Structures are given as C-alpha cells and as structure tokens.
C-alpha cells in the first residue's frame, strides 16, 4: 500500500503562478494547485471553457506552467485522445495527459466525448472539478447541482432534481480507477492522482469544489464548508479500483466513528440552500442515514 502523503513531504514545486483571476478563496485554485503537483511537469493539460479557463490566464499570459490546450466545451476527452494518439505516434510514453473540466463540461455537454474516450480506454486522467453549477457564467444549474440549491436559473424554487452521479456513470465504463475527492482534502486528492497515474486506460477523478460566490459563504470558510460536506456524510470520499468500492480518508474514518454531523449544518453554512425547509432537510438526512447504514453494514 502506498504511504500517505503529508504536508511535509508534498512536493514543493509549484506549477501555478500567483496573481490569477480566480475568485478570492476559490476552491478550484486549491485543488488545481495540489493536483498539478501530483501530475508533475511531464503532463499536457486539456481544458474546456470553465472557471479554469479564466484562472489559467488570458492571452498572452498563462498562469499555469504546464502545456495546455484549450478546447471547445463538448470536446475535452476527445481532445485528450488526440494528444495521446500523437504522443503514441511519437513514441513519447513518458508524457501524461490530464483533462480538467468543470461539472457542466463533464456531466452535461462533455459527457458524450468522455463516455466515448472511456469506452475506448484512452490512457489519461480526467479530473472533473465539481463546484455544482455553471459558476463561470454566473451560477446556473448543472447536472451536478444538488437538489434544493438556488441558482441563477432556479431562482425561487431551487433545483428540483437530484445531483447526477457522474462517478457512478464512469464506474459503469469499467474503468481501472474512479475516485471522489474534495478540495478540502488536498492530500487525499494528491494521493489518488498519484495512485492511478500508471493504471491502464481512462482514470476518472471527481473533485468537490466549494465556491464562495456560487454557494454563498464567506471566502475564509471554504475548507470548512468542503469538510462539512464530507463529515455530514453528504459527499463521500472514495475510490473504485477495478470495480472495488472503498471509502477513503475522512469518509473511511467516519465509518469507524459511526457518527455523522447532521446535514443541516452543511446546508445552513451556505445561502444557496436557504429555501430548504426543515422537512426537506429531514428527508435528505434520511437518505444520508440509509446510505451510511449500508456502509456500516459492509464494515461489520
């Protein structure tokens, strides 16, 4: 088993410059910064339009020190395939390809290309940073916006539908590696990227990304909000290695503790959930409890 990375042995080399256009307290900026450390220098990035496009910089200045191809919204995974094919034809097997796309670019418009690439077994890492909405265009609902969240186009009733479970969709492609991470647990993200890097075919990593303007919390609380999602059992950290599901990191510890923070605390930490009623929260709490009862059962 791979030793867990600590802050002290995390690589010190930075691949992102300061002074980006990311919002103050951007959760993506944390995950991206640490994620690139895991990927390392010999990586080519593929990025569709998203907050990351802005974070990465406007011509002629790039905030990222890695080579990156900006591509159209729906084509991320296909473009990654094209770079891979080139590297293969050039015999450059030391260079990795990593796609970073938002939740809209993954769960909605980019899903077809992603499914195609995953089915073909293209050897790259796909990272979906999930801030649960179209934040770059001003906070509209996406496939992964959770039920009850008020967005610019679900302004009064909040989103009425459940969050799309993208990791499950990807797991259905029989991938060697699927993982769920959070910007609030950057070392877990680092270890998961490192773990899957040399696995065959497409690897999918989903990252929960707290977003101060989109979720409605003060920038300083970003890590706390992300952590609450995990500690309430609302968003789980896990990995699926060759089909085997396993909770990891903080979520794994929650199984041992047998104690979840009430999800109400998570909802009340953000203004986007302001319209959720006590009854609705209770219903969601029931869903979470049922899910965790299942985890506990497996643990016994």
């Amino acid at each position, binding site marked *: 088993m791979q030793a867990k990375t600590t802050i*002290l042995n995390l690589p010190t080399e930075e691949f992102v410059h*300061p*002074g*980006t256009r990311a919002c103050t307290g*951007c959760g993506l900026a*944390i995950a991206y910064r640490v994620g690139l450390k895991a990927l390392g220098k010999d990586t080519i990035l593929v990025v569709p339009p998203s907050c990351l496009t802005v974070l990465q910089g406007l011509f002629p200045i790039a905030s990222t020190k890695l080579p990156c191809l900006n591509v159209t919204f729906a084509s991320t995974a296909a473009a990654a395939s094209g770079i891979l094919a080139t590297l293969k034809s050039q015999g450059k097997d030391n260079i990795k390809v990593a796609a970073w796309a938002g939740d809209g670019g993954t769960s909605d418009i980019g899903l077809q290309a992603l499914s195609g690439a995953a089915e073909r077994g293209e050897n790259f890492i796909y990272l979906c940073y999930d801030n649960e909405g179209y934040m770059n265009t001003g906070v509209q609902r996406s496939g992964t916006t959770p039920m009850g969240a008020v967005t610019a186009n679900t302004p009064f009733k909040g989103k009425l539908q459940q969050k799309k479970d993208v990791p499950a969709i990807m797991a259905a492609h029989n991938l060697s590696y699927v993982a769920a991470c959070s910007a609030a647990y950057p070392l877990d993200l680092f270890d998961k990227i490192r773990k899957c890097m040399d696995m065959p075919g497409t690897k999918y990593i989903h990252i929960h990304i707290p977003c101060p303007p989109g979720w409605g919390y003060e*920038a300083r609380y970003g890590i706390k909000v992300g952590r609450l999602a995990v500690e309430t059992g609302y968003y789980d950290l896990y990995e699926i290695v060759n089909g085997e599901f396993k909770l990891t990191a903080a979520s794994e510890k929650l199984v041992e503790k047998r104690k979840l923070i009430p999800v109400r605390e998570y909802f009340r930490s953000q203004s986007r959930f302001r319209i959720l009623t006590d009854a609705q929260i209770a219903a969601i709490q029931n869903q979470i409890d049922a899910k965790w009862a299942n985890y506990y059962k497996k643990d016994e």
Partner: protein
Amino acid sequence: MGTRNYRRKTSHSEHGPGDGGRTGSWRVERPVLNKSLCIPCKRNTEACFICWLLCPDVVISRTIPPKIDLEYCKGCGICAEECPTKAITMVDEAQFSEEEKEKE
C-alpha cells in the same frame, strides 16, 4: 504601435505571474502572522505548513516563518481560518497606512 511582427499568430500564452494584475489590491483584510503562535516558528523546525498547503493563490511560502506575498494575496482568509493555533489573523486593510502600502 502595432503587433504585426509579434512572435505568434495564434493565442499562444506563455506563463508568468500576475495575469490578473497585482491581485493584492483585491484584499479587504490582510493576513498577519503572529510568529509566537506559529508552530514551525515556535519549534524552529519544518512543521504544520497548513497555510501553505491550503492557500488558493500560492502566496504563502513553505518557510520558517511562512511569508505571505502581499502583492498577490487576495485576502481570502482561509489561512487564518485553518491555522490550528490561530497564528494568522485577518486585519482590516484600512488599518495599514498608505505609506506602508506603497512600501510593499
């Protein structure tokens, strides 16, 4: 002044700091480190560095003491919020004189 002879005819960006400008100007509050509370400072050994790990803007150094690059720090306050010993506090920018600001 034209750009006809610019090196590239495509949108081909090269990396460097400050794409968003001197983003330190975005700051409303400034992180201030109290070395007497900071773990690596107190122990004078590499330790903790949570502020470095969680900084979204790569402006905190992994040094003893950790240094904050105020030219680019946007003042999000995550470092202050996450510091286990409360060694960093967020202080209203208005409390720093113009003169001091220029010095930075």
